[in-house]
């Protein structure tokens, strides 16, 4: 059977789902895309058994067929062709795929479509919808803070907490934490789950930055995200998330008000001379002067910046990982921020000076233990 499709359209859709495909998977068929053609519609699926993505396009097809197509080869061919219509000839009997371009012909060995793992269907227990741009923003602002430690699997995802009248996204690697809360989204259900980092990153790269609605169906084990012609099904991380509320300090009497850009740039400059492994920098606030400094004893480099700031509280000297600080300041969008501190051994909290409408952002960073003796 044959179908005709434009290279750029197909490539676009393949790129959306290609992020799911892992290199060197346990079973070879996971390195393929499933092409499922039914009634002139091509469904493209990719899965790693935990996360699956599906997208569909209209094609001119004469028959229905399913086949698994080698992902890398197919994309490499399409990528190197100019934008033009190409004809796919699929022989389901011999599992071969032929791609005819204007001047060329490529024949690839596929695998039977029936061997492709079945994409789980989410038997929805609960569901809600959210604007794509809101979800995109929430993921972008939290995913960087997720952990990478395989031994602490529960921290390797974004904790999504649904309340009757608000929705929170929390990410932490035990050294820093981001809580992004939307008060204008009312899921109407009470539930929580841990969204794996991979699924979050896939959503981040495929969600449109528009007001389009994303429909989320979920049960205790899986979630289904549907938007445009694309859907993503993922399994949650089946672990208990730590009680993050307990670590957010209730009282931080020392408050530093500062322009975000200025602070960020100063930290960025100082970080250049900080130790390349620990990224340690020192903040010293006395009166209305903030001194940021770093020294790398191994290389004998050091640097110091002095900034004017608006500070209320006792003088303090505190150590931080400059990477963490930069990630957080970068994640903030407001012009001015509040940096709340209490003692050199307690968490610092970064807040926007004024939250944008419907948003409530809180970032927390643990200090480094400075010894001043």
């Amino acid at each position: 059977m044959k179908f005709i499709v434009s290279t750029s359209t197909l490539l676009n859709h393949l790129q959306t789902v290609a992020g799911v495909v892992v290199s060197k998977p346990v079973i070879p068929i996971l390195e393929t895309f499933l092409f499922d053609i039914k009634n002139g519609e091509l469904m493209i699926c990719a899965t790693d058994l935990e996360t699956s993505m599906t997208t569909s396009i209209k094609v001119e097809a004469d028959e229905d067929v399913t086949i698994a197509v080698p992902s890398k080869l197919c994309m490499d061919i399409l990528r190197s062709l100019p934008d033009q219509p190409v004809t796919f000839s699929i022989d389901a009997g011999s599992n071969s795929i032929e791609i005819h371009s204007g001047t060329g012909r490529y024949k690839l060995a596929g695998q039977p479509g029936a061997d492709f793992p079945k994409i789980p269907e989410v038997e929805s227990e609960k569901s809600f919808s959210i604007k794509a741009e809101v979800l995109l923003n929430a993921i972008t602002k939290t995913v960087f803070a997720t952990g990478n430690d395989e031994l602490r699997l529960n921290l390797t995802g974004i904790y999504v907490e649904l309340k009757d009248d608000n929705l929170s996204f929390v990410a932490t690697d035990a050294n820093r934490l981001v809580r992004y809360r939307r008060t204008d989204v009312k899921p109407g259900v009470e539930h929580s789950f841990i969204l794996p980092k991979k699924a979050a990153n896939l959503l981040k790269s495929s969600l449109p930055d528009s007001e389009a609605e994303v429909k989320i169906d979920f049960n205790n084990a899986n979630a289904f995200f549907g938007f445009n012609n694309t859907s993503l099904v993922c399994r949650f991380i089946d672990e208990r998330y730590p009680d993050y509320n307990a670590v957010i300090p209730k009282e931080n009497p020392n408050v530093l008000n500062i322009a975000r850009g200025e602070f960020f740039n100063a930290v960025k400059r100082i970080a250049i001379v900080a130790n390349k492994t620990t990224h340690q920098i020192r903040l010293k606030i006395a009166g209305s002067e903030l001194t940021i400094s770093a020294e790398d004893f191994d290389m004998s480099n050091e640097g110091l910046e002095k900034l004017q700031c608006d500070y209320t509280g006792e003088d303090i000297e505190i150590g931080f990982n400059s990477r963490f600080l930069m990630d957080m300041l970068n994640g903030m969008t407001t012009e001015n921020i509040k940096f709340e501190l209490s003692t050199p051994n307690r968490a610092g909290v970064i807040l926007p000076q004024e939250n944008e409408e419907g948003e409530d952002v809180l970032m927390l960073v643990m200090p480094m233990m400075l010894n001043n003796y």
Partner: protein
Amino acid sequence: MHMDLDTFFVSVERLLDSRLEGKPILLGGVSDRGVVASCSYEARAFGVNSGMSMKMARQLCPEGLVIRGNSSNYMKYSDMVTEIIKETFPLYEKSSIDEFYVDMTGMDRFFGCLKMASESRKRIIRETGLPISFGLSENKTVSKVATGEAKPNNQIKVDMGMEKAFLAPLSIKKIPMVGDKTYQLLRNLGVKHIRTLQQMPPDMMEKVLGKNGLAIWKKANGIDHTPVLPFHERKSISTERTFDRDTIDVVKLKGILTAMAENLAFQLRRGNKVCATVTVKLRYSDFNTYTMQAQIPYTSADHVLIPKVMELFERLYKRRLLVRLIGVRYSHLVSGSYQMNMFEDSEEQIKLYQAMDKIRLRFGDRSVMRASGVEVRSIGRSNPFNGDAPILLANRRE
């Protein structure tokens, strides 16, 4: 130039107690398990060497006086000598407690190297009362060999260009890299004197001994370009302990490991370092030695390191055998402080570490510790991060 204090530990003991003059002295661990850390020339006449077990040394030299020794006295005298060398020479390297390398490049124009070296040697002898020898030559290896030849309490100058001729008649054992194994191997090949090594083609040395062969060949020919380094960067810190009597008492073993892990963690914090690798070493009574290591996120916190050490020990201690030695090593050291963890650390805990470290800085390493390690003696150590080379124990010498 290489300088070496003759029978340093014994010399210090003799300064403190003149009755020891002229007697054979064995200094080191007093028990049968102990090794001879240093011995006087009188004792060497009996065939005793440093590094030999005390039991054997006693058999060889029954009239030898066995002394336990006190490391803080040695440190004090070593520092006195260091101070003089520091004042006299522009660039020096303290390669162990009793050995120094001095770079005198360019000094000839002003002072005359030999004159300067002899004068400083006399000054050390005069001011500290300790015998010292030196070898003066173009590079480190030849100087070190020359010092060995100069001893006791003397000096040798090997003129520029005479290095090969100086080394040629000596035994191959005198080359710093040649230990017992290499010596045996080379002797089996019929090589006895450095002269033979000098004449061997370097390719052949490489074939027989691998990379080291080439290095040994270079040294035999008096070629050595290693610079005199004033500062030693520590790549790891470690401590280990051999028992007087092998033990199977797991509670005791764990107590010792706790004390070791705790003390080393304090050393890390004092040196403003964090480490990423923990290694535990275990030697059973049959001399089979096992080590196990684990990677961890950069840390210097007791409550991360001690459980890790315990975990490694549990995994390592599988055989129901008596244990002869245990040790702990922290490596992958980087300057920096401990990054706090919001779920595992509390402010109280961090404050506790800071308070304990302050007490230790003021009253000594062993002034505050976990109760399980309180019975363990001889673990406290000097600051490993002051740039000095680690103190070589006699039993670890090559």
